[in-house]
């Protein structure tokens, strides 16, 4: 079916996510965009499609709002859970900021008071470091799991993006810290002994060092277009487009591959429709769609229609996901010609 569509359009890249499904080397897939454009729906659909061609798929939501549970109609936790109706699709919901909180609590329970204090100081010292560290913790967990592909449904504010932008700063800071630990470690131990503290500084520096290693490794993987790609989701409106352009520029500076744009919530009113709002909106969407085609020539641009019902439950998602691989062809009596 993908061949059909590519035959139809010679210049444009095929308007599906088939390329993502075909690229077997992909290990990390990020789905991102402004809030309310249908990121969760898109990532769920993509996960469903991927589950057909891959051994095992993990879908992670880092959005504190946690829409994953709503989308599948099933409660997920921060443990990977099998999605009902699938044999190889797992989902989990994590909040990066709460993850560092847990880490702090944990270290306090273990009696490593200095570790906790240190982490707190660090979290306050550099803005965004708490999120990044939380994310690093998440990555650590995820890395130990054996999934052939992992899809991130990112939060609108883009914890992910910030994390991706983090490498050099945090790496340098942590490198400095571990360097210091080598120099002042013994003194530190003596001091804490005198003060009556029971700081397990070996453990503390070891943890920081480990975190640094993870961040470095993960960042290297993220910069590899064979292993990682970013799928931008937007709607055909000015602000969404603006955000998308900014995001793509940002991704380019972080050297993260992105070559797919999903344009969501498109209206296809009937030719004889007398719904004024629909027609006006359709016209506007058409205008921005033209701009998208003009601007992102080397992207796969996937058009998704606005359905008349909410997409809830596995069945809906399965149906919706078909449109990611088969270009949506509106019935003949509709205004818009997709393959235009």
């Amino acid at each position: 079916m993908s061949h059909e569509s590519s035959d139809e359009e010679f210049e444009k890249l095929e308007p599906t996510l088939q390329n993502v499904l075909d690229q077997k080397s992909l290990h990390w897939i990020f789905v991102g965009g402004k809030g309310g454009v249908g990121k969760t729906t898109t990532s769920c659909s993509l996960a469903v499609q991927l589950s057909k061609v891959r051994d095992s798929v993990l879908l992670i939501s880092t959005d504190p709002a946690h829409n994953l549970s709503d989308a599948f109609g099933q409660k997920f936790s921060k443990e990977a859970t099998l999605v009902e109706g699938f044999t190889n699709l797992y989902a989990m919901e994590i909040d990066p900021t709460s993850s560092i909180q847990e880490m702090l609590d944990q270290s306090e329970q273990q009696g490593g008071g200095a570790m906790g204090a240190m982490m707190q100081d660090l979290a306050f010292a550099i803005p965004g470091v708490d999120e990044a560290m939380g994310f690093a913790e998440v990555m650590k967990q995820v890395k130990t799991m054996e999934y052939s592909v992992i899809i991130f449904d990112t939060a609108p504010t883009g914890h992910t993006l910030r994390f991706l932008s983090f490498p050099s700063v945090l790496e340098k800071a942590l490198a400095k810290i571990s360097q210091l630990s080598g120099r002042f470690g013994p003194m530190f131990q003596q001091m804490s002994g005198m003060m009556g503290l029971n700081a397990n500084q070996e453990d503390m520096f070891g943890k920081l060092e480990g975190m640094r290693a993870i961040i470095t490794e993960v960042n290297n993987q993220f910069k590899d277009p064979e292993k990682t790609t970013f799928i931008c989701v937007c709607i055909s409106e000015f602000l969404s487009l603006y955000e998308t352009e900014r995001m793509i520029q940002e991704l380019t500076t972080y050297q993260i591959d992105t070559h797919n744009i999903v344009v969501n919530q498109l209206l296809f009113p009937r030719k004889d429709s007398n719904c004024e709002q629909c027609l006006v909106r359709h016209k506007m969407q058409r205008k921005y769609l033209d701009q998208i085609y003009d601007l992102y020539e080397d992207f796969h641009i996937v058009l998704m229609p606005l359905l008349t019902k909410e997409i809830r439950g596995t069945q809906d998602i399965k149906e919706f996901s078909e449109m990611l691989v088969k270009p949506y062809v509106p019935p003949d009596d509709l205004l818009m010609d997709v393959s235009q």
Partner: protein
Amino acid sequence: MSLALAIALVVLITEFILWFGYSQIASLAYGVYLNAFERERVQKQRKTKRDILTIKHDLARTSSQDQFAKWAKLRRKLDSKMSELEKITTSLGYLKTSFEIKFTTFLWVVTNGIQIVMVIWYRSSPVFYLPQDWFSPISWIFSMPFAPSGSVSVPFWFLVCRKFVKKVVQTKRDAVPLYHKYAPESVKQHGQLFIQWCKTQIRIFTPIVVQWVNANVKTFCNIIAEKAKSSEKKKMPSPSTNGTSGSTSNEEENNDASKIEEKKEKKEKILEKD
């Protein structure tokens, strides 16, 4: 006697540099240096700035809502140009700082280093002898610390020269208001005319000279370098460092020439103020 003249010259140059200010001279020299050796980078910077202004102008005229694609493309171009400009600017900034540090050090050596060296080198040689009966009871002061008695020593002569220059400057400064107060009108008028004539002459010739110097600094350097090379070839077995030092000193001379021109302008301005 030549020693006395040399010292006087050194003091004159030193006082001039001090009066003009290290940083002023350094920045002037930096301008010449940029023009001579970094012209491409400066021109590139200028071109980038102009491009940025053009793009900004276009961007302002492009509606981001109606022509989003065009607008976004312009935006990308602008961003890339901006980062390029930043890179050039920072590199030039580094260059400027390092150049100014080096040049200021050089000026310091010229002003203070030479004096110190001369004082030490000629510590026991007389500049000239005074007639016996001029300052007979206190003539030993003039030969302090190591010069033969009855003569004027190098440090003392330095002191005298410096005092003299300072007094001259002071007198000139004091004389200007007096001149304005007491000089007859006709003298003032003629003086004004003369100064104006001088100004126009300088205004005409300064840019020509500066341009000439700028245009020829490189060729001079090249010629001297070649000469040095050829002489080096002649003295093949004993390579000398004359070449490099010669070229740098020449460059300095050129810089000095342009500086003097600049100084003239400065002086006029001061005159105007007075």
